[in-house]
């Protein structure tokens, strides 16, 4: 597990100086901001040396430092190619920028939306549960179905399918729209840890009051946030969070469910939060291999490249977000697989943009939803 460590920037001195004396640059190969924007300070290696200068007070919180910080997907490719976990340090940099009141306006808007509406899009709170209106939803139990923000607002049919999938495989998950809001991940990534703290504690309190023991979600970002970041903010945190794909895999692995073989070729995009942060790379592959033939893209598993949807870049620099999605989309198309699949709604949404822009004929499927008709 990538250990989330919440330290002040100055407390990462050893790691910063170690990078400073190493300078291998292995982090740059799969770093899409570096590839698209070109200059050194958009790569992990370059950003690390600017952080050194900041820690030594040789530079201040300039506009270009903000630019370097928010043109990063925090995808963790550099983590996988390193031993210093640079994204912990880049998260700490964003925290410093927040404290210094240097957060860019588009990012502030997202935080405000989460605080006001419980989602990053500024959409009405009540719309979150529209998908469940006419659905047969379980209301009582200890396992909570946590949808995240993207599915219910942007893909309501699909979130319903995922809920039905859980029912089908025997996971008795409850859905409680009254207590569901954003997990707070986007807010955490802006460095506003006070607001994040409040969101996390409110969510946790509500879950505990309902007797929730476990959360299952189709969003890797939510699972990562709840299982790895919440414990850093909440004393005595006791709650399990898991991804839908893990629930399916567990049932499949012990033989309680089976999957219809589709005899198609698939390629799989590893979501950063699921692969590098939660270390789940083999389980989705085993499911896909049961469906058809899996063709790996050039960058895969722990070394997969970001889809372009991470780190709030879509809000700060939509052009970079789009260009990165084109890169990754093309790489996936290059596998010549018939179906591109992933397990993250952010990745799905971002890759969809990229694939449309490059006019790809390859179809994109959300594995979370695809499984409903395949499981038996």
């Amino acid at each position, binding site marked *: 597990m990538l250990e989330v460590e919440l330290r002040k920037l100055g407390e990462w001195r050893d790691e910063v*100086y*170690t990078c400073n004396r*190493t*300078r291998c640059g292995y982090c*740059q*190969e799969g770093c899409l901001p570096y590839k698209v924007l*070109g200059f*050194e300070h958009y790569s992990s290696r370059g950003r690390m040396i600017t952080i050194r200068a900041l820690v030594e007070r040789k*530079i201040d919180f300039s506009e270009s430092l903000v630019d370097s910080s928010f043109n990063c997907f925090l995808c963790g490719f550099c983590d996988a190619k390193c*031993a210093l976990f640079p994204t912990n340090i880049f998260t700490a940099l964003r925290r410093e920028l927040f404290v210094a009141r240097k957060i860019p306006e588009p990012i502030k808007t997202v935080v405000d939306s989460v605080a006001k509406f419980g989602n990053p899009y500024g959409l009405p709170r009540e719309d979150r549960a529209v998908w469940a209106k006419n659905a047969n939803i379980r209301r009582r139990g200890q396992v909570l179905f946590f949808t995240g923000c993207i599915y219910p607002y942007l893909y309501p049919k699909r979130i319903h399918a995922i809920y039905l999938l859980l029912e089908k495989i025997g996971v008795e998950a409850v859905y409680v729209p009254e207590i569901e809001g954003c997990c707070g991940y986007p807010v955490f990534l802006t460095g506003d840890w006070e607001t994040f703290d409040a969101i996390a504690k409110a969510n946790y309190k509500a879950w505990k009051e309902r007797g929730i023991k476990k959360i299952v979600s189709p969003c890797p970002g939510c699972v990562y946030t709840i299982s790895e970041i919440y414990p850093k903010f909440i004393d005595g945190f006791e709650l399990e969070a898991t991804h839908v794909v893990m629930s399916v895999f567990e049932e499949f692995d012990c033989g309680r469910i089976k999957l219809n073989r589709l005899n198609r070729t698939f390629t799989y995009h590893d979501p950063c939060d699921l692969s590098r942060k939660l270390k789940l790379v083999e389980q989705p592959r085993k499911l896909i291999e049961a469906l058809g033939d899996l063709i790996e893209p050039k960058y895969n598993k722990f070394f997969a490249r970001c889809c372009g949807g991470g780190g709030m870049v879509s809000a700060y620099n939509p052009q970079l977000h789009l260009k990165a999605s084109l890169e990754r989309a093309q790489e996936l198309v290059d596998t010549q697989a018939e179906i591109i699949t992933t397990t993250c709604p952010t990745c799905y949404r971002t890759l969809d943009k990229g694939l449309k822009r490059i006019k790809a004929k390859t179809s994109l499927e959300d594995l979370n939803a695809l499984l409903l008709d395949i499981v038996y």
Partner: protein
Amino acid sequence: MINLEAIKAEISNAIGADKVRDDIVTLVAYSRDWSPRPAEELILPNLVVRPETTEEVAAVVKICNKYHIPVVPVGGMTGMGGGTLTFYGGVVIDTKGLNKILEIDRENLTVTAQAGITIKALNDELSKYGLWLPHDPESKPTSTLGAAIACDNDSTFGVRWGKMLDHVLSAVVVTGSGEIIRVGNRKAYCSSSGLKLHALFVGSEGTLGVITEVTLRVLPIPEYRWVDGALFKSIKDAVNAAQKLLSSGLPIDAININDRFRLQFYTHAYRVKYGREPKVPEETQAILFFSMSGDKELVDFAKDHARKIIEKFGGQIIEEREIIESWWKSKHTLDFDPFKQKWPDSQRSRKFGAADVGVPPGRLEDLHREFVRAVEKHGLKILGMNIYNERIGCISPSVSCAVYVGDSEDEVKRFYEYVKEMSKIAIDLEGTASTYIGDTWRLLDVMEYEHGRALEYMRKIKEIFDPNWIMNPGKKFVLPRDIEEKYRGLRC
């Protein structure tokens, strides 16, 4: 007085403002390479540009030449000698924007590419055609073609396929006056025509101009490779065995001889796996690692023959494959566990630094003795000696005399004194001061000792390509005094 704002405006006008930066964050990011430097030192350029074509590079250099402002071309910035440091400020040309492959000629076995592509990226693409460029430094994910040529760095496979000098057929360069010229002979593998100007750029360290495009010979990827290793009681025994391996006609493509100090780096994986030390005889003084490649049937036959030679020369085959695989990972595959890449983890408190000298094979034992003595004299901590072999088909030592270096000013200073001393020792042993890092600034004091009167001819050649001494000043050549004084004022 140089007007940097005017220069920035002129360059921006020529190549586009989005390719020109002078904000402090960008400048800081270009302040350091892989060389040992004091921890808090920042050496800043005045401007960083990132052109994407030869013409854009030429436009930048022309403007710099007009205003007599230094130009420092950089590639992957993984050089171990400070070759990219901007001691006199000036304009950094980040060549990584020139990263396109222009032609893969399968019939003639050549590739033409812009010089800023990384070696790994090029080989990833070539592999789709069953081809590869056998130039294989450890820095290949980051190191660019242009930098590999300009620094003349080492390759894992030098003993079979040579160094960049052996691969470069021709190149496009921008001289210090901003002129674009093609050097070498197109795709001809050999030529007796003219002077070999392309060879001048190999190891030129950016002092003659900027390499922007290269045509290289490439080869079919070998079908199969076997990697092996053996322990010896002396470096001499290991060298003798290696010489026999080569002369016997085996398909050897890599040979490294390590001293005993370095063994610990390759036994780590074994210790982790089995929780105990591997069996290494007390009297072991040298470890010979080698690889052979070609058709599987042939290599399988060669493997047994190689082992017979090793035993005949008193070597003990390493049976613990973890040791051999560790060496291979560290040199070639770089296939480290995710989140556990070796470089940063091994340099958490001190850095690796090396004197990179060359001596004839018969002087290696002498060099090793001097290495141990010099490390102690300068109060450094020994890391060990690694003997790479970089000329085709022969024992051709390119020796890394490596130490751990802290990043205090005093220790860094002692390190460079050690490097200079080792370089002079190597020259005294009928060798050379540098084999893979280059002269950079660190061997300026040794240049005359190494080259004598020939250095004057080199300065004259330099002035033909770079009449105003704008190209990477302070590297390889001592600057003329008047130019040095002028440039000193530019340093940030």
